[in-house]
């Protein structure tokens, strides 16, 4: 075991895969010499050389598009989008090719590639640096979208993502890149993608969150505990595929469900989870599924961001409301 934050853990996962698999290539904007703007890839170019870990021209479509080419030609590219807000030039490559090549060629061609990117708010950033647009990507057939919430999960999930023969969008909650430290297993291990994790058992209400929101829910749970409310916390970990089974089982037990997400509300991940709760546990529900989410507005600049973001109070407010419903 070793104490790591999420940046260390992701770096460790990349280090392990680069070390054992020659077909793994890591590239993107400023990931080589500088080691990434968040230092996630620090030291990797030095260790594995500029042929395997390198900086590219500043062009997101080019980065993802070339990764599609490398992947069909037998490599396992792990590319970085510097921020979620800058992925849109690459959207066509993701939705038109990375997610479709396998289906288009009836399985003759595969695109085993990982697109990593930091996402989410709460770090007083410039415009376009705070969005949580996972729902957009969760809607793309052929793509898998995952989000770790702890260093341990980040390492195990990234190793699984790199080893997967599917195209994986790996979203990193940058707000907690360095905020959480924990003991992480040394050496190689992987966590199956698509499986949620029950972080706390409870009886009164199920709260589903992922990424940086998990920690906010955990803080709200302290308030809930004082109020005598028992919360079951599910870390979704995968936006697509969704772990219906874990959600269903929990809602059947608690009869209530709240989703906590950072993205805009309408057509968001919370809507999908709520629908699953209705389909799987309709007769068990004692309150309407509820969504704590961003509003359908642009993420405000830092001075206004707190109006948009979910915090423990907002979450506890909703927990209390739903339990008393």
């Amino acid at each position, binding site marked *: 075991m070793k104490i790591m934050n999420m940046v260390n853990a992701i770096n460790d996962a990349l280090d392990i895969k680069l070390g054992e698999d020659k077909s793994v290539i890591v590239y993107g904007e400023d990931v080589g010499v500088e080691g990434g703007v968040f230092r996630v890839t620090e030291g990797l170019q030095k260790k594995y050389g500029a042929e395997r870990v390198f900086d*590219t021209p500043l*062009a997101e479509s080019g980065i993802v*598009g070339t990764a599609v*080419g490398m992947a069909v*030609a037998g*490599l396992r590219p792990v590319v970085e989008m510097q921020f979620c807000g800058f992925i849109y030039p690459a959207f066509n490559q993701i939705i038109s090719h990375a997610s479709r090549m396998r289906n288009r*060629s009836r399985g003759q061609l595969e695109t085993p590639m990982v697109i990593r990117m930091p996402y989410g708010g709460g770090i007083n950033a410039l415009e376009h640096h705070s969005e949580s647009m996972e729902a957009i990507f969760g809607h793309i057939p052929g793509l898998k979208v995952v989000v770790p919430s702890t260093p341990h999960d980040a390492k195990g999930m990234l190793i699984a993502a790199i080893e997967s023969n599917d195209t994986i969008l790996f979203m990193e909650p940058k707000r907690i890149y360095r905020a959480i430290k924990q003991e992480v297993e040394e050496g190689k291990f992987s966590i199956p993608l698509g499986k949620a994790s029950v972080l706390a058992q409870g009886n009164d209400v199920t709260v589903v969150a992922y990424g940086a929101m998990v920690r906010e829910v955990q803080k709200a749970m302290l308030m809930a505990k004082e109020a005598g409310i028992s919360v079951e916390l599910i870390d979704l970990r995968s936006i697509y595929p969704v772990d219906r089974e874990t959600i269903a089982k929990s809602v059947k037990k608690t009869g209530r469900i709240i989703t906590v997400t950072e993205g805009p509300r309408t057509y968001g991940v919370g809507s999908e989870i709520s629908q699953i709760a209705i389909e799987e546990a309709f007769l068990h529900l004692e309150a309407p599924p509820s969504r704590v989410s961003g509003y359908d507005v642009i993420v405000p600049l830092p001075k206004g961001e707190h109006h948009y973001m979910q915090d423990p109070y907002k979450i506890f407010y909703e927990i209390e409301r739903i339990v008393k419903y």
Partner: protein
Amino acid sequence: MFDEYNPLNKAMFRVIDNDGKVVNKKWMPQIDDDKLLKIYKDILFARTADLQIVSYQRQGRIFTYPPNYGQEAIAAAAGVLIRENDWLVPAFREMGAMLAKGVTLKEIFLYFMGYEDGSAFKNAKYTLPMSVPISSQLPHAAGIGYAVKYKKEDKVVIGFAGDAGTSEGDFHEALNFAGVWKVPVIFIIQNNQYGISTPVRMQTASDSLAIKSIAYGVKGIQVDGNDFFAMYKTIEESVRICRNGEGPVLIEAVTYRKGAHTTSDDPTKYRSKVEEEEWDAKDPVKRLRAYLIDKNLWTLEQEEKIIPQYKEEIDRQFTEAEKYGPYPAGDIFRFLYAEMPDDLREQQAQYERFLAWKSTKVK
């Protein structure tokens, strides 16, 4: 050759004139007679197939199709020079190159009949399926080029796009990445003068499309794409450059789309008869045929005899494709992921339950 025809000099590279006479002996490629005859027959076969597909479409036996008519020399030259283990990254108007790579006519038919199975090439290795979003395939070519270089393989990549494709960001990004990476990729732009209805002069203020290579620091050349020999020589030279590690290369192949953009398009709306006739005089098949006849390698009688044989063979493959059978419901689900999500499996089961129910209601 690339120095002599530097795009800044604004001279288009050609070897034969419109009558099939060699006007540029210096760069006339060495191809022996038997091989040349086979190439011509392959071009003739591809043209016959292409025209026939359009008529199948008119008969309602195939869906939308983008004809190759008038541009065949380009894909044919690439097809002759591309080796089994080289990569082909097509757009969607390169039938000759795809056939040369081992894609069957039947597969091409299946694709345009509406089966993805037509893109699951059984014999053609290192060949990507056709790419519909314009120029989006070019970054793939650059990425494959990187993989080839990284693995130290003796391969080149040939990627295609059209004139309007040079307006897309992906064209720029692919050329730029390939240039920085110095990868063995030959980008061939089929300048057929129109992006659907929009003429090339409305795509760019540049003097040519080849001249764009200068800005990326890569070799570029403008070639008469209706001159088979010029195309052959250019690609042959480009392959040599790439194999020497001096790639990538940008080739602008100047041609004319004699047919419609697709079978849904009506070119009379945006181009004149006069223009069409002008280009008809430069038709690539006519020019190569004139050369062969002049060299006593071919006769019109032979051509008249062989075309019906081709038509029969094409029709045989088409009829076979028509018998391909129903599209299994499971096929819409099962190829999407290497590891299929449980929820998707459940969606498939749900659909199959519905189909079973429907079969009891609808006879």
